[in-house]
């Protein structure tokens, strides 16, 4: 690991000033960053440790019914918050399907949003990677790429964003609060991650020094609690990143879908909100046929970036299954294998 300076700021303003300098990065739990530093993939000159800052680890309901989650709230603490699980069950299911219990205990909400891709060529410093080293090329394009993107990719980069947590969050219109050099601002989570285009090294809308301080779920996000699921296909049952995942949330009134939310994971460089699919589900009866139509809409424009055409059909089926599970109702208790299509208590309905 390259040598670095360690800074522990006392305030958010000090943190922003320290992290705005070239070569500086924020350190939260470090579960992703330290791994990347050990491999020489990330080589920061300075770590700005935000874990001792006050006021970033609370979960609070705001006057308008929004929920504000501090950036330093632990993934496990959020997932094990009973009130949170009742109100946003698909988010809890996504959290519990990610990583291992040890990593969830350490990892933070803010850090999860900014975790880096798991593309093997990004991790392997002997390979060319436009994301790691701008302009060097992409060895994934003609390499082992069955897990890579099928939506929103470019010739420069076919990596995917690995977060589970972000998938239901983006479906529920989460907002990210950011403290930067020119003060506080907020953006939709959907705008946080960038598609690669010809600059895959720029992964987010954040500027130097920008610190995510909170994630907010708007009041409407609670309206889906009765019909919300996260479904994730992995290469093994637990402790693996998504090959494809989907968050589906429905608001059902008088037997019809008043509003649908749908997002996919593992398919693009960002959590992929499928608005065209949501549109066709408005005011229809929740049936397998309607969900098939939504699935086709969700994957419109998808194309293989390598040996991964299977992911397009897999994603369609996962979308249909997630919507059917959501329509059947949020289970009273979290399944033993959260988000798993093989969960014995998932009430799986075959599409």
């Amino acid at each position: 690991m390259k040598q670095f300076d360690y800074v522990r700021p006392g305030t958010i303003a000090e943190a922003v000033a320290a992290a705005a300098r070239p070569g500086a990065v924020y350190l939260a739990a470090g579960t992703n960053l330290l791994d990347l530093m050990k491999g020489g993939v990330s080589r920061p000159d300075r770590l700005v440790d935000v874990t001792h800052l006050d006021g970033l680890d609370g979960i609070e309901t705001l006057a308008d019914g929004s929920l504000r989650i501090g950036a330093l709230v632990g993934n496990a603490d959020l997932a094990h918050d009973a009130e949170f699980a009742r109100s946003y069950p698909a988010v809890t299911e996504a959290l519990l399907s990610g990583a291992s219990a040890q990593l969830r205990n350490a990892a933070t909400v803010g850090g999860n949003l900014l975790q880096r891709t798991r593309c093997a060529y990004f991790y392997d410093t002997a390979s060319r990677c436009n994301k790691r080293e701008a302009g060097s090329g992409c060895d994934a394009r003609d390499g082992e790429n069955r897990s890579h993107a099928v939506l929103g990719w470019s010739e420069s980069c076919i990596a995917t964003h690995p977060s589970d947590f972000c998938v239901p969050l983006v479906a529920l219109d989460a907002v990210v609060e950011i403290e930067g050099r020119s003060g506080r601002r907020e953006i939709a989570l959907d705008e946080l991650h960038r598609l690669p285009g010809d600059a895959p090294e720029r992964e987010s809308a954040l500027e130097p020094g920008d610190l995510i301080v909170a994630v907010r779920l708007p009041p409407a996000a609670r309206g889906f609690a009765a019909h919300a699921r996260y479904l994730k296909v992995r290469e093994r049952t637990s402790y693996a990143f998504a090959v494809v995942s989907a968050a589906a949330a429905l608001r059902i009134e008088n037997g019809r879908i008043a509003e649908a939310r749908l997002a996919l994971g593992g398919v693009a460089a960002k959590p992929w909100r499928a608005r065209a699919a949501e549109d066709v589900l408005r005011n229809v009866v929740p049936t397998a046929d309607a969900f098939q139509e939504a699935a086709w809409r969700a994957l419109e424009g998808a194309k293989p970036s390598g040996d991964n055409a299977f992911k397009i059909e897999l994603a369609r089926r996962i979308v249909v299954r997630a919507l059917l599970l959501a329509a059947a109702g949020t289970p009273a208790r979290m399944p033993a294998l959260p988000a798993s299509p093989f969960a014995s208590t998932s009430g799986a309905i075959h599409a």
Partner: protein
Amino acid sequence: MNHSISLTVNGARRDFVLDDPRVTLLDLLRERLHLTGTKKGCDRGQCGACTILVDGKRINSCLALAISHDGADILTIEGVARGDQLHPVQAAFIAHDGFQCGFCTPGQIMSAIGMMREGQAGNDPERVRECMSGNLCRCGAYAGIVDAVLEAQAGMDETNQRRSA
């Protein structure tokens, strides 16, 4: 630049001067305190052999910078027994052959203790397997590990019932 930190390790306060901020909790425990029960397996957060409890929660000590954990309360495998009296999870691992080579065992035991404190798995074998998925065992002693954890959990439930009775 030197950095001073203090930790509570297995109940005792320890002060350290770090001349390098790159030291992980794992390396600090092993190299500075010679608490070598905590194992370095993959050193990348994938195998769980380095699992310890920090402020009561199980984490991978290989992915935690010591300098960032100034003030933390740490429990390692060396701190779980009371003298010669094994922790119930340790005893259950022996009773159920929850290991073969033993390298992953301290991490498995610390993870199981952390899991029981989290209270999410209960006596459901499927939930235990899911909640222990962050600990790999290359000998494949998983069946014994799950049995051991279930027995320890049942013992804890019994103790709690006796206390509340």
